[in-house]
């Protein structure tokens, strides 16, 4: 593996981890913009804009974009989160020129009115689709409540109302403000030639507007709350709870990653043995999510409504026990093995490397090779877990419940 990085004059950052033995190459434009950067009333504009990217520009129509990507057999797509809009693809090395040109086209679409009107229907369908996924509804509600008054509480999809009301002019203004080259990182993993990458980047990205947008990253101060959404007649109850955890730049984030595996992985964790293995819950998991300036412990429980209350108590008991007594060396070692194996296996494919390569750069401006990652993982000790628990004890301040129950005790 060879790492390269540079920056164009307009501020576009370029990083590459190259491997001549790979069969493919993966490329991603990581744009530092998402729901948290939206100023009301344009809720959902980042995600809508991500869709509009595939509608092309003066040179390529929407049909062209999809057709050419398919002609080179690319796996390509885009995603929008609270903080990053990512446009990515993986393809055979000989198509790097075509792929770079198309992915660069996506970042600066024409935003034609008729395309905008048609895509609005698709976005409304997507909102409808997620509305039928109850765990997603619970996630949206808990994020909204936990980060009330903080930009991280803004919905990624937006609402039927905000999308219906959104105009293409508002989208244009948002695009001009957020899609400056200084907000974008181009990451490349796999089989490519650095000189060629640079040449292509100059060719397709030199003309992008220079500059960058700042983002306030104050740590959220959530006020405890419980939201209950009585859903259409469904069988299971979904609970999501959030509590404060380390932010993306906090050195404790690796300890948090390990702790979430030990306590709430979907197999062989404390929550698994207490709730899932005995058949008390369909899912009982603890996740750790890191953002710019804030982080969350995310507890997810899905079970028979009648067992929700006792299951929540069981989870609380687990958290109390961990907060008071920590974890064992054996648990820590096992989690390290588990994560190390995931890291190595994922990194065997360029597409698998792309997200950690780009993510590390966007959040921390650092390159972490798989070997470095394994070393960092091994450096986590029981003491660092203890430090983490003192600063960010397991628990929640916010609860969202979706399902047939009229009330869920916090």
């Amino acid at each position, binding site marked *: 593996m060879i790492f390269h990085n540079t920056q164009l004059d307009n501020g576009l950052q370029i990083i590459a981890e190259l491997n001549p*033995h*790979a*069969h*493919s190459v993966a490329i991603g434009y990581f744009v530092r913009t998402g729901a948290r950067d939206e100023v009301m009333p344009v809720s959902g504009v980042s995600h809508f804009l991500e869709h509009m990217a*595939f509608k092309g520009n003066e040179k390529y129509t929407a*049909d062209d974009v*999809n057709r050419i*990507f*398919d*002609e*080179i*057999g*690319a*796996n390509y797509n885009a995603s929008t989160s609270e903080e990053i809009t990512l446009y990515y693809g*993986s*393809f*055979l090395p000989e198509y790097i020129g075509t792929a770079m040109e198309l992915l660069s086209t996506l970042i600066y679409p024409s935003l034609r009115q008729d395309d905008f009107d*048609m895509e*609005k*229907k*698709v976005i*409304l*369908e*997507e909102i*409808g*689709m997620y*509305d*039928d*996924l*109850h765990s997603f509804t619970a996630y949206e509600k808990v994020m909204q409540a936990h980060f009330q008054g903080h930009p991280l509480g803004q919905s990624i999809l937006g609402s039927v109302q905000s999308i219906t009301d959104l105009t293409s002019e508002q989208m244009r203004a948002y695009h001009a403000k957020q899609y400056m080259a200084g907000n974008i990182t181009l990451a490349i993993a796999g089989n490519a030639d650095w000189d060629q990458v640079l040449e292509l980047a100059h060719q397709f990205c030199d003309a992008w507007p220079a500059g960058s947008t700042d983002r306030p990253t104050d740590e959220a101060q959530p006020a405890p709350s419980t939201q209950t959404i009585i859903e*259409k*007649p*469904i*069988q*299971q109850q979904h609970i999501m709870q959030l509590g404060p955890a380390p932010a993306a730049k906090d050195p404790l984030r690796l300890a948090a990653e390990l702790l979430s595996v030990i306590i709430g992985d979907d*197999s*062989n964790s404390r929550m698994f*043995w207490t709730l*899932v*293995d*005995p*058949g*008390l*819950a*369909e899912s009982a998991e603890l996740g750790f999510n890191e953002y710019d300036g804030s982080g969350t412990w995310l507890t997810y429980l*899905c*079970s*028979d409504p009648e067992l929700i209350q006792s299951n929540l108590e069981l989870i609380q008991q687990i958290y109390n026990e961990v907060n008071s007594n920590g974890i064992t060396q054996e648990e820590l*070692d*096992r989690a390290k*093995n*588990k994560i*190390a*194996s*995931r890291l*190595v*296996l994922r990194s*065997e*494919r*360029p597409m698998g490397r792309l997200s950690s390569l780009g993510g590390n750069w966007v959040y921390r401006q650092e390159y972490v090779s798989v070997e470095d990652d394994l070393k960092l993982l091994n450096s986590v000790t029981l003491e660092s877990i203890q430090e983490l628990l003192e600063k960010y004890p397991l628990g929640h301040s916010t609860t969202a419940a979706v399902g047939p129950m009229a009330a869920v005790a916090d």
Partner: protein
Amino acid sequence: MGKQLIQTHQFSNGLTLVMESMQNVQSAAFSLMVPGGSIYDQANRHGTASILSDLITRGAGPYDSQQLSSALDNLGVQRHEGTSSAHITFSGATLADNLTETFKIYSEILKAPHLPENQFDASRAGAEQALLSVEDDPRQKAMVELKRRSFPAPWGLPSDGELASLPSITIQDVKRHYETCFHPNEMIIGVAGKIDFDEVQQLVEETFGSWKSRDISEEPAMVFDDEKVFFTKQETTQTHLGIAYDAVPYGHPDYYTSWAAVGILSGGMSSRLFTEVREKRGLCYTVSASLTGMPGLGRVLCYAGTTSERAQETLDVTIQELLRLGEGIEESELERCKARAKSSLIMSQESTSSRASSIARDWFYLKRVTTLDQINDEIQQLTTARVLDYVHEYPARNFTILTIGPQPLEVPSDIS
């Protein structure tokens, strides 16, 4: 594609090892396919195989349930156990150096499971929760129900079982299922990664070679459904549509032609369904078609999710596109299918898990392994005339149509 090293060996007890050596990786992946899937569930005991696939890892040989999980976690095994119609499959991936120790543990799971009675209720409750989750996810439910209606029973029945059957399943049923189905005779072990064939052959001999063969369970008779149109009323935001029609099965001489026909409909974002239903009319976020099958029978299964006011139009437009395929195919459409095939075949060599499951599945269907070069050759030789001939021979008709949503849709009588 580059040279692929695929080797096979059948052991004296009937077990077949299929292996692919991949030198540019550090990992090894495996897929152990035991012929004990849901088609072997007894009538009114649908879910037995599914419960067995959970209970079987709750202790085996010298390990109790937690020790077993911990031993595999310590070896870094990313594992999955699942039930399909024909098999209970144990798959996993880990660093190649850990394969020997991993196989020793799996030989205990397969040959000496505890199947603890005191954990049976927990296992069954877990199965019930999983089925309830499908009830709550209309998209998943639509596809499960479409498969049920478009394939003959018991092949089309949900592999995870049925809620109504669960209460009558006992631990004895699960133990009987194990006794009947878990034998090496027709078991397939697929392994792919940075490994040496001779070593793996020896490893399998040591771990599974002494396992005694038994009488083979007979495949049950097939029962076809007469009904073709189904509606389930549910208070959902979208209406969820499933459409199925006949295709050729895997292993058929026209299989790759059939794959290309479905690819033109639904492979990539320039495909017909995506373009006509989503891009031009904005009717859906998701619309797709895929080829699925069982030995001897294939089907195209389509899905679309759309808000209820536009559901009728979505159904009409989707069916129109399925029918329109018979009117002609452009050269460029086929070329794009070929490009996608080549690229995904080459990229599959970056995933040991994908190769291990592919070669094991090939052995089940074909009793041989098709190399990536052979698949690529077959696809690259296709012509639009041949794909069109196929579409005329196996047209989109005799549809099975299923909708889940607030209101039923009108299904034109001349097409169903």
